[in-house]
């Protein structure tokens, strides 16, 4: 390759930028953000709380694994510390033998699938809270959750309703009896809209 002299006078029409990203496609970090994760320690925990949730996302998602310290148990889920009869629930469940459906209205909490006890067996779930920051509509929660314990189990579809137009800023997930056992883990994600 021939070597030629490069002089300042040969460089013309040069654009100068302060950022190395200039001229490149915009950096897109994706639409899915971890807001907070809570993992239960050896002492157990009766309630998991996500507080001061910003309204900057379109939807929320809670992903969890859970085990009870003592027995098969259920969840109580509430928004914004509201303990009034402002909630409603529907579910479609399968226990390995029978499919069933149920509904509860004017109730004081929302729910996910029951979760097990046992040394190494955990329930799992994905909870979506849609349009959680919209102040013009009630809030709907969608749940896919269950557990299997090699001979027993449960799989649930659920929908939960909070009859409030307030933005969701706090989520409390409480074990109905006893506590969430060690290694139970709950993670809150924010999903951005267009």
């Amino acid at each position, binding site marked *: 390759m021939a070597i030629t002299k490069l002089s300042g006078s040969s460089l013309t029409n040069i654009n100068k930028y302060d950022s190395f990203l200039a001229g490149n496609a915009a950096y897109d970090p994706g639409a899915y953000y971890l807001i907070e994760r809570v993992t239960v320690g050896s002492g157990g925990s009766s309630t998991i709380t996500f507080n001061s949730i910003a309204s900057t996302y379109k939807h929320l998602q809670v992903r969890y694994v859970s085990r009870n310290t003592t027995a098969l148990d259920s969840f109580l889920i509430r928004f914004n510390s509201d303990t009034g009869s402002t909630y409603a629930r529907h579910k479609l469940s399968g226990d390995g033998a029978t499919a069933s459906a149920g509904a509860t209205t004017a109730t004081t909490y929302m729910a996910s699938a029951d979760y097990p006890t046992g040394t190494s067996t955990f329930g799992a779930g994905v909870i979506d809270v849609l349009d959680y920051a919209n102040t013009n509509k009630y809030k709907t929660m969608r749940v896919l959750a269950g557990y299997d314990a090699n001979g027993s189990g449960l*799989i649930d579809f659920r929908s939960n309703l909070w009859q409030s137009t307030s933005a969701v800023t706090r989520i409390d997930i409480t074990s109905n009896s006893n506590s969430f056992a060690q290694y139970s883990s709950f993670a809150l994600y924010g999903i951005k809209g267009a």
Partner: protein
Amino acid sequence: MADTPTKVPLATTTLGSSVASYTFSSIPSTYTDLILVAWIAPTLGTGTSIMAVKLNSDTTNYSGTGLLGTGTAVQSSRYTGLSGLPIAGYNNGSGTGNINIICHFQNYSNTTTYKTMIARADNASFQTEASVGLWRKTPEAINSIQIYNYGGVNLTAGSTFTLYGIL
């Protein structure tokens, strides 16, 4: 609270030809959950109409509970003693209807607990369903996921599989 982008596509493939199974291997342990998204083209074979996943090539230690609706009936089933985790049923040999599947492998990389998977599967010409599965092998991180037909029918060309990691 932190604000960290967390959903990462790890690998994706569209089958160029019919194969017995497809495997995501060498899955890193750096995420919290895995999400498998599958679009499976209709098969032309016959046999057991169950799609399943096998973890770390293990052929035992699986059980599951399922719930499905066919349009005229709803039912729940239990699986024990299988060589994989069932994730979807479908109509082998019909040549119509594809299956859309989403599987969540929660806390997949921990070495302390059994692994629980929850899945949703839809085949508009056959059934819609959900399932939960348990892998009871002595706890180890999931480092490979094999998707296959429990009855040995090949996966059809054009089927698409994508694996995401969730931090």
